[in-house]
């Protein structure tokens, strides 16, 4: 086995699982570290949090060793040693917490590097930092021994009013287990009614295994009396045994299994309710729902054609069924979509973490406010939004927010405010990153852009600030700093958002602050689309990317610098003839409508001949690199069995601006192989 895979070791097949599990552990670690922050400098930091952190790094260490990610193993080992020293008696210092935060961030990078097949970042200085921290505590070895396991008397502590202490015993049997009553679910039930202060196994006299739980709870006795039928017995707790005797105690009533087993409803707490599913399986499920949507559209078309040939009553019944089917399909589609959704909480927690790290570096004071953390976003989208959001947050802290003294000088609170908000509106998701910092000085940005040659002097007044910021190669800094100079400019942010079919907007006031708003479609797989006709061919255009459909009168068209423009809302809108762009035969030139897409300077009118209607379409990406064409997002099948291409409106708007180098593609030739790939 080792010979077959000399580079990756025998457990290489588990790498994907490794990445997923590490991500989970790091998520827990981030939350625990943020929760630990208030106890900096206090004696006895929260033991449970430290235990949790310790276990995260312990697990990462073990797994990293198995899949041979040495840097992660070493780092986790040092962090674990430090945590183990901390658990003994120490005070968590600011530098300790900061080192742990830096450790988590470094761990992310180490794992990301392994995932990308790149060489790991240098961890030597961080390792050194942890061993220095651990050795600060005289006598604590760098390899801390495992705590000697003990079975102490439960530490019950002072009772709050209305609380009592109960002792529960539970003996598992295969019958109970088959009903979902097992030690894990029993523990969960008890945790739901109070605090489990002890959970230990008992050696029963009859040689059977049982468990004892000591629980402090203010719940009424009646709430667990009904658990008797699940063989969960209870009595008031009395401290009887000395430490160590617990293992051999006999605590079960003798007639345990004699009671008739009443039919018991399945416990709502039965087992762990979480399932981990590979995203590709959900893609497959979504694909099948997509097939259904197409079949129903087919049925819809057939029904319309059949209306004249059928008895009205029969037809209406069929039509009712058809409409019910449509509703049910929408529900099904939403159900599948919901499965793919994850709360944005985890992303926000990561931002919280990054802000924490940045404020330490920059010495600024930042209060981070999060809202809408339960907003759910498609897992695929979340992963692609991580870097753009990180960039916006980094920008806000390092450029947007001022130092405390600058803020005080301009009459602001010394603490800067940064808000991360998420919300859903209909079919779209909004994510906002807002700061109350110095705002973006448009004049300075334009001046800089002119210096860099990105904007011609005369166009500056009409160009939108966001367009300039997002121009490739734009930076207001002459020297990139660590926080923002990572090569992920605003251009990349906007591209990432647009690739997901979303849009980016900017709102800024000098001296008051800046807000970036990201708008994203809720799902990528099925979309409402306008069906349009260009030179006799039909195309689908996702509705979410179209701001408006306007009718064109020939009189409104003007030619300006070799471009056709349209007067539109007090300005001019460049018109892009899609028939020309795609090289279609369009002798007739009967353009009648423009689909307005893009914001501000990037708004473009896509000229089409006719608008045929609005439909739900299933987006099939074109995966074959040979048929990938700019301006085409994918393909779909309409209900009448015909395939049409889906236009990428924002991509078209982008290439319209670089109109000098338009691809001259023979789309007719493309259509058939493209669709063959798409299916």
């Amino acid at each position: 086995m080792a010979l077959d895979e000399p580079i990756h070791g025998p457990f290489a097949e588990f790498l994907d699982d490794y990445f997923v599990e590490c991500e989970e552990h790091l998520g827990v670690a981030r939350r625990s570290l943020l929760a630990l922050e208030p106890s900096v400098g206090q004696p006895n930091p929260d033991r449970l949090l430290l235990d949790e952190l310790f276990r995260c790094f312990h697990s990462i260490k073990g797994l990293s060793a198995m899949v041979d990610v040495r840097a992660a193993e070493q780092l986790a080992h040092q962090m674990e040693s430090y945590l183990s020293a901390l658990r003994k008696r120490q005070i968590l210092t600011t530098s300790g917490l900061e080192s742990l935060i830096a450790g988590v961030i470094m761990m992310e990078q180490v794992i990301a590097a392994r995932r990308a097949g790149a060489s790991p970042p240098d961890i030597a200085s961080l390792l050194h930092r942890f061993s220095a921290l651990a050795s600060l505590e005289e006598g604590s070895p760098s390899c801390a021994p495992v705590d000697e396991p003990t079975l102490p008397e439960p530490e019950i502590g002072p009772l709050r009013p209305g609380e009592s202490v109960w002792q529960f015993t539970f003996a598992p049997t295969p019958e109970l287990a088959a009903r979902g009553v097992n030690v894990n679910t029993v523990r969960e039930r008890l945790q739901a009614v109070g605090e489990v202060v002890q959970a230990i196994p008992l050696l029963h006299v009859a040689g059977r295994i049982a468990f004892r739980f000591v629980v402090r709870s203010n719940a009424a006795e009646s709430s667990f009396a009904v658990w008797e039928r699940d063989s969960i017995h209870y009595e008031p707790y009395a401290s009887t045994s000395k430490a160590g005797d617990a293992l051999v105690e006999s605590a079960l009533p003798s007639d345990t299994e004699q009671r008739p087993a009443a039919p018991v409803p399945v416990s709502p707490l039965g087992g762990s309710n979480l399932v981990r599913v590979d995203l590709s399986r959900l893609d497959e499920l979504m694909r099948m729902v997509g097939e259904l949507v197409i079949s129903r559209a087919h049925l819809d078309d057939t029904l319309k054609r059949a209306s004249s040939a059928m008895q009205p009553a029969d037809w209406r019944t069929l039509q009712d069924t058809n409409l019910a089917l449509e509703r049910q399909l929408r529900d099904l589609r939403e159900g599948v979509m919901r499965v793919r959704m994850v709360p944005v909480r985890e992303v926000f927690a990561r931002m919280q973490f990054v802000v924490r790290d940045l404020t330490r570096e920059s010495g600024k004071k930042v209060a981070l406010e999060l809202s809408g953390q339960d907003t759910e976003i498609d897992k695929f989208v979340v992963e692609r939004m991580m870097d753009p959001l990180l960039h916006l947050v980094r920008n806000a802290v390092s450029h947007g927010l001022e130092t405390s003294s600058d803020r005080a000088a301009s009459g602001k609170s010394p603490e800067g405010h940064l808000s991360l908000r998420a919300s859903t509106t209909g079919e779209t998701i909004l994510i906002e990153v807002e700061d109350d910092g110095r705002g973006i000085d448009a004049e300075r940005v334009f001046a800089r852009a002119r210096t860099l040659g990105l904007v011609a002097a005369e166009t500056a007044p009409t160009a939108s600030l966001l367009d300039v910021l997002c121009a490739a190669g734009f930076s207001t800094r002459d020297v990139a700093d660590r926080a923002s100079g990572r090569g992920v400019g605003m251009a990349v942010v906007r591209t990432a958002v647009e690739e997901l079919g979303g849009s980016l907007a900017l709102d800024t006031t000098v001296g008051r602050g800046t807000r970036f708003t990201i708008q994203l479609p809720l799902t990528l797989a099925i979309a409402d689309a306008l069906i349009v006709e260009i030179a006799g061919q039909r195309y689908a255009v996702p509705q979410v990317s179209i701001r408006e459909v306007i009718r064109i009168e020939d009189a409104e068209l003007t030619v300006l610098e070799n471009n056709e423009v349209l007067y539109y809302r007090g300005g001019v809108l460049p018109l892009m003839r899609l028939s020309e762009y795609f090289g279609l035969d369009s002798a007739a030139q009967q353009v009648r409508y423009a689909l307005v897409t893009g914001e501000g300077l990037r708004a473009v009118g896509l000229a089409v001949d006719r608008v045929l209607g609005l439909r739900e379409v299933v987006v099939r990406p074109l995966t074959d690199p040979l048929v990938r064409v700019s301006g085409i997002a994918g393909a779909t099948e309409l209900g009448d069995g015909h395939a049409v291409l889906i236009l990428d409106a924002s991509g078209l708007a982008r290439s319209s601006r670089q109109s000098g180098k338009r691809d001259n593609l023979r789309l007719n030739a493309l259509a058939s192989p493209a669709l063959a790939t798409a299916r």
Partner: protein
Amino acid sequence: MKNILVVDDSATMRRMVMASLRTLTEVAFHEAANGLEAIERLALAPIDLMTLDLNMPDMHGLEVVKFVRRHPMYERIPVIVLTTRSDEDSRGTALTGGASLYLTKPFDPAVLASRVREFMNLP
């Protein structure tokens, strides 16, 4: 059919252990993610051998070993402790506490498989 109980709080690690032992025939695997669950499994299935992680959320692996050794019905079950670097200091404690074998992660899957064969008298 022999029954092997794989105890580890990491699902990935449990799969790695089972993958290491997939060359064994006539074996069924049972899994537990914490100490109490491990002990419960003993009551629910005729377990012939246990692989055991030490650092688990509710109960230390050494407590599990001690419990198993004190229980008349399960005291003979071979327990292979699989643990991570730096727990070396607990090797002695684990072996005196009743562990049959102590392997450190990363373990060699072939070594694990051959030791399990020995313990279970498998061909």
